[in-house]
């Protein structure tokens, strides 16, 4: 079941990213370009998605367990620390520089464009380095 759920939710997610314009780096940079010609359209993506999760998560997290799984796998950390801020700041900087965040970059594999592939390889190398840096030693 986990596999079917993953494919179906992936499809909905990927179609949503493509429809909304998130897979178009130019559009993303236009959204972040507050000091130039601002394109507000991507506000509606985040807005639409968060309105749904704000409502649905209220009910889901009251369930004793998910429908097809033993337990919820929720992030445990609530810490607002330098690690969080530095990570988010680095991510934001790269997001602005190229216009891809991880989800849309992966979905954009569909466009069979070499630029996306280069971005993705670099992204996984960065994530691997992050993983090694975070390992307790």
């Amino acid at each position, binding site marked *: 079941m*986990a*596999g079917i*759920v993953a*494919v*179906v*939710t*992936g499809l909905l*997610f*990927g*179609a*949503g*990213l*493509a429809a*909304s314009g998130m*897979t178009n780096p130019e*559009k993303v*940079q236009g959204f*972040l*370009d*507050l*000091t*130039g*010609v601002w*394109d507000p359209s991507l506000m509606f993506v985040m*807005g*639409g*998605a968060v*309105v*749904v999760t704000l409502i649905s998560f209220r009910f889901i997290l009251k369930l004793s367990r*998910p429908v097809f*799984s033993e337990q919820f796998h929720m992030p445990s950390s609530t810490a607002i620390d330098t690690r*969080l801020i530095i*990570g*988010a*700041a680095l*991510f934001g900087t*790269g*997001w*602005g*520089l*190229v216009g891809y*965040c*991880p*989800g849309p970059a*992966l979905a*954009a*594999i*569909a*466009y069979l*464009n070499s*630029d*996306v592939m*280069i*971005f993705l390889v*670099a*992204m*996984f190398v*960065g994530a691997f*380095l992050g*993983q090694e840096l975070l390992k307790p030693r």
Partner: protein
Amino acid sequence: MEVAEFEALLPLAGGLSIGLAATLLLMLSGRIAGVCGIAFGVLTELTSGAPRFSEISWRVLFIVGLVGGAALYHFISGAPMPKVDNVSIGVLISGGFIVGLGTKIGSGCTSGHGVCGLGRLSLRSFVATCTFMLFGVISVYIFRHLLGVI
């Protein structure tokens, strides 16, 4: 500030579909639809020394769905696929690298902290979302308007 002409309906519909995907994944499988968490989890498993097939398979299937969903959208709607133009390889590599590093260190991206974290009213995710949005804006300002590299 100048505001471009824009369309709201399609982005809103896309956002609702993303929200629905996150809802179903949490309700049915108990998982948070944070794409970097899902994707980098594959990397963690593969480099752990004892990879668990069940932890890898659903993550890979989600990514396959992600790619398929984007392809299907363009196929059905006939909307042209966006092109990436004039991006230097140095920009792509450095951008990709800090996106991967940053989302790993900061434990989340636009979907994990943004869509799901805000949905469960996590203060940590709210702070992360404000931070990456702010730095995204600063980044475009610096690289587009000051340095002119993008």
